[in-house]
Every structure is written in structure tokens, then in C-alpha cells.
């Protein structure tokens, strides 16, 4: 007998051609496995232990130099050499210095509804914003996935997050997710799939949606997922992949273990304060706090829409603190150049850096002792940006830009 299914149950049932439900253990084929310079070296080592460094299918494995890229040191350069050798031997697509962050590249080149994607990076959950089932794993799991083209999953229970209504003009999907993180807590959705529904999500651009699925892991979720709709189709069309579109939606009577209903009008511009992502408060609570640096970018908020929002605020003005901008990919950078956004950032005093993870893990740019930073990234853990004695606050691109203009955390008034 067929039972109603959640989005993730549908996708995985489709993949293994058998109806499966939360709690079932399955061995599933995967459509893509990827790893980056922080995780691939260990995966290669694990493949060697398994007795082969040959991948199952050269078109379904990607490797990306993004975390410490362009290379800041001899050791990292040698890691990149090892990655290039692995890619050459397997005839894989390798993304180089300046190509961008792994998730953004996978979104542009690969993700689509109903795909099953595993990545050796915790924010692999991002791809659910395009209706894919995607999850992060460690290097051993990814090594096995690269060799066998399969992995095991326990079908996660689902947490329905339904958001309805119109967000205020100065509230963005980042604020909405931080608000949700405050409600659910850092472990509130452990091993569950966050299934986002409601009119607010439907009305959002794909880029805004991706900001939210990107952060699913911050509440412990295995994945985040959203419906595949006309906006998904349009996104795929932009990247010449419209044919890969399929509608995704849950059955009406799908079973959710938990449910959270949010009224968009209740959400304020939010901030996450050190050192946990679920330490959230309205921006107004921290207004006036001095900051040393503002960072705009990352796989959470480094897309064209984010840069547009920030540039609109910065246009013709000067930042009062250090300002760093990392577009998420080469494609984003090129579009930002064409749109004149990069001129605005440079004139505002920003250091515009080549696409990559950059500040987010403090590998190519690190903080000093006692510094306070406001960033659009997804994590504010102690030491995250390369210094245990720095304080990281998280916010939307709008709050980041307006705060840069004051050198202090500032409430975004909006237009």
C-alpha cells in the first residue's frame, strides 16, 4: 500500500525504485560525489587504503580548490598538486583557483530536482534549495561513494517548516533562517530533513532559498529541501539545464515528526552573536557595537542577489571599517562586473577577492586578536575565521553593508 511521502522520501524512493519511509536503511546510487581541498586529500588516502583511486564515473565526481585558494602556502600548494594529479588520472573536472566555492559550482553545473548528491563538506545540504537530496559526509564516506557510486542512508524523519506571509522590506532569507535557528536550536533537527514550505518560500528567489537550505546543518539537519517549481525551472534555464527540471512537492498527508509555523511579518533583521549560530537576537539589540571588519560572501550569501543588495546600500559611500567581498563563483563575479557592482565595492573601500571560501574559515585571510567581525557566512564558532580570540557575528548582506558604512553594527532601515 502506498503511503503519503515527504519530499526526501519521494526522492530516495525514486532513486532506488522502491517505496521507502523515515527510518528505513537503504543503499542508494548517487548522482554526484564531490570533495574540496580541505577534504579530498584524506579521501584520496582512504581510496588508497581501499585499494583503488579510480572513480566510478568521471562525470559524476567533482573536485574543487576553494577552501584555501588561491593557495596561501607551500603546503596548500602541494595539496593542490595532489588534487590535480588525482583529477588528471581520473579525467575529472577540476575547479581551480578563482572558480569559486564548491557548492556554488555544483549549483551552477549540476544540482537539479531529484538528484542525490553527496559532498565532503557539511554545507552540501545547500542543494536542497533546488529540490535535490544532498548531504555532507566525511572523507571515508566520500571515498567509498567515489569508488562505488553508492552510499548508505537512513531515511531521515522530516521537520516541516512552513513560512507564510510577506517578509518586511529589510528582512531577508538569512534573517529568516537565523530566526528559525533561534527557535529550533543548534541540535533541534539532528538527522532530520528540514522541509521548507509555505507562501514565503514560494515567493523567494532561488538564491534566497539557497541561503536557507545552506544553513540546514546549523540546526543539525541531514538536509534541507524545498519544492521544485517554476523558479527552479527558471534557475536551471539560466544555466542551460532546463531539461533537468522536475517538479518536487510533498504528498498532502506526508508524516512530519516536528512542525514549525512562522508568520513572516514577525521576523526582524537578525544577528547571531558569538560563538553559536543559535545565539540569535534582533540586530537592534547589538546596534552600536564597534566592528573591525565586514565580510560579504561565502556559500551562504555570496551570490549575485546578495552582492546587489549590498552594493545598493554602499553605492557612492565609503566603508568605515575594513570591508572584504568574496563573490561565490567566477560566474557571479563576471555578472557583478557587468552590473557595475564591483566598481561600487571598490569605490566603497572594499578588498574584492577572487571567488572562494576566503574569510569563512580564515585560511586565506585571518582575523587578529580581539577583533570583532560581522559576516554574511553561516558559522560563528570560536576560531572559525582563523583566530580563537576573535568574535564573529552573522547577519544578512543588507545588515553587513549598512554596518560597514558606520563601522558599527547597524539596523538596516531599508528603502
Amino acid at each position, binding site marked *: 500500500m502506498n503511503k503519503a511521502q515527504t519530499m526526501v522520501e519521494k526522492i530516495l524512493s525514486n532513486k532506488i525504485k522502491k517505496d521507502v519511509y523515515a527510518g528505513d*536503511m537503504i543503499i542508494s546510487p548517487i548522482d554526484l560525489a564531490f570533495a574540496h581541498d580541505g577534504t579530498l586529500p584524506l579521501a584520496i588516502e582512504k581510496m588508497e*587504503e581501499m*585499494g583503488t583511486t579510480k572513480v566510478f564515473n568521471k562525470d559524476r565526481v567533482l573536485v574543487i580548490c576553494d577552501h584555501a585558494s588561491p593557495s596561501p*602556502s607551500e603546503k596548500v600548494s602541494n595539496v593542490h598538486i595532489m588534487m590535480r594529479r588525482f583529477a588528471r588520472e581520473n579525467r575529472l573536472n577540476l575547479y581551480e583557483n578563482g572558480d569559486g566555492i564548491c557548492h556554488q559550482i555544483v549549483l551552477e553545473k549540476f544540482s537539479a530536482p531529484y538528484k542525490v548528491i553527496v559532498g565532503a563538506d557539511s554545507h552540501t545540504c545547500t542543494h536542497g534549495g533546488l529540490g535535490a537530496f544532498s548531504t555532507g*559526509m*566525511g572523507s571515508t564516506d566520500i571515498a*567509498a561513494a567515489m569508488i562505488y557510486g553508492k552510499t548508505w542512508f537512513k531515511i531521515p524523519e522530516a521537520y516541516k517548516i512552513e513560512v507564510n506571509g510577506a517578509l518586511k522590506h529589510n528582512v531577508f532569507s538569512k534573517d529568516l533562517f537565523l530566526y528559525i535557528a533561534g527557535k529550533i536550536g543548534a541540535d533541534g533537527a539532528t538527522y532530520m530533513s528540514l522541509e521548507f514550505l509555505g507562501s514565503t518560500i514560494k515567493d523567494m528567489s532561488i538564491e534566497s532559498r539557497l541561503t536557507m537550505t545552506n544553513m540546514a546543518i546549523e540546526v543539525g539537519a541531514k538536509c534541507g529541501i524545498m519544492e521544485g517549481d517554476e523558479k527552479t525551472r527558471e534557475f536551471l534555464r539560466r544555466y542551460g539545464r532546463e531539461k533537468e527540471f522536475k517538479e518536487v512537492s510533498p504528498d498532502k498527508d506526508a508524516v512530519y515528526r516536528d512542525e514549525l509555523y512562522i508568520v513572516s511579518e514577525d521576523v526582524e533583521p537578525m544577528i547571531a552573536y558569538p560563538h553559536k549560530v543559535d545565539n540569535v537576537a534582533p540586530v537592534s539589540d547589538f546596534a552600536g557595537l564597534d566592528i573591525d571588519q565586514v565580510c560579504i560572501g561565502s556559500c551562504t550569501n555570496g551570490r549575485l542577489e546578495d552582492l546587489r543588495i549590498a552594493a545598493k546600500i554602499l553605492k557612492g559611500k565609503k566603508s568605515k571599517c575594513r570591508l572584504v567581498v568574496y563573490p561565490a563563483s567566477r560566474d557571479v563575479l563576471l555578472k557583478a562586473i557587468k552590473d557595475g557592482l564591483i566598481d561600487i565595492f571598490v569605490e566603497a573601500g572594499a578588498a574584492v577577492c577572487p571567488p572562494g571560501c576566503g574569510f569563512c574559515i580564515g585560511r586565506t585571510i585571518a582575523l587578529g586578536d580581539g577583533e570583532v567581525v560581522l559576516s554574511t557566512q553561516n558559522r560563528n564558532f570560536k576560531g572559525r575565521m582563523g583566530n580563537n580570540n576573535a568574535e564573529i557575528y552573522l547577519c544578512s548582506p543588507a545588515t553587513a553593508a549598512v554596518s560597514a558604512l558606520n563601522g558599527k553594527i547597524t539596523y538596516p532601515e531599508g528603502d
Partner: protein
Amino acid sequence: MSSEILRVFPSDINTDEIISGKYKYDELDMNKLAVHTFESIDKNFYNDARSKKDPIIVAAKNFGCGSSREQAPQVLKACGISCIIAESFARIFYRNCFNIGLPAIECNDIAEKVSKGDKLEIDFESGTIKNLTKGDIYKFKPIPEYIRKILDAGGLIPFLKNNDGF
């Protein structure tokens, strides 16, 4: 065989705290990397761990949240940790532990019930932990069958080798 609790950690210990991301590019040898384990929390962790036989660590909720870096359970293993007991684990970390053959056990309220230095005896078959110091017995959630097979094989690699794949 009993083992001593080396340390009891609070909730939400993340993988950056276990091993800072800044080292992972510079060192692929886990035994060398392990020197930095828990560096931002406890500078003596590595030496303390190495001075004991098969020590155990205990934590409250959501242990190992954050990055997917497998170096986190790897360095704990390289420190000689024989088992991690927590009220709950972040799932990528949990899966990584078994993949490298390090048992991770979920046990309700464990962080409140035990203290540093307690000697524990763990029985995976019956799902019980005997606290030899306090004289208490705790039940833990059985490890799911498939994961148990991976653990019994010594990790995912030997498991896949024995099975010739998945």
C-alpha cells in the same frame, strides 16, 4: 576491561573545537595533528589522553557539530580515545566515528551522571555501561545494526573490503 573518563564536555562541542580547521591543510599525519586536539579548550588534552590507557570522553548534547571534517574523530582516535559517550551526536560526526572504527554511544543524561576520573565498563551486547567508581548502571540506545556491522569490521574500509562493496 574498564576505562577511565578523561573529561566531561558540555553541549554543542563543534569540530573546530576538536581540531581547528587551520591545521588540516598542513598536516595529513593524524598522529602529528592530534597534538592540537581540543587546543582552544584544554591545552593539556593530548598529553593527558596519551598518559592513560584507552580513555573515554563524555559529552552532553550535539557533540561534534559543525564541519564534516573527518580529522575530528581521527585525532580523537590518535589521542587513544577508545569510546565517546554523549547524550547526542551531530550526525556527520557520528557517521565518521564508525567509519574509522571509533565507537560512539548515545546515552541519556550521561554528562550529569558521571564525573571525570570515573572508571566505566561498557557492554555493547547488552547496551549497558557500568560505572565502577559510583556503582551505577546506565542503559544506552543500541547501535543501529548496519552501523554495528561497520564498527565490528573495524570501520567502513575493512567493511567494504570484506563485502566487496556495498
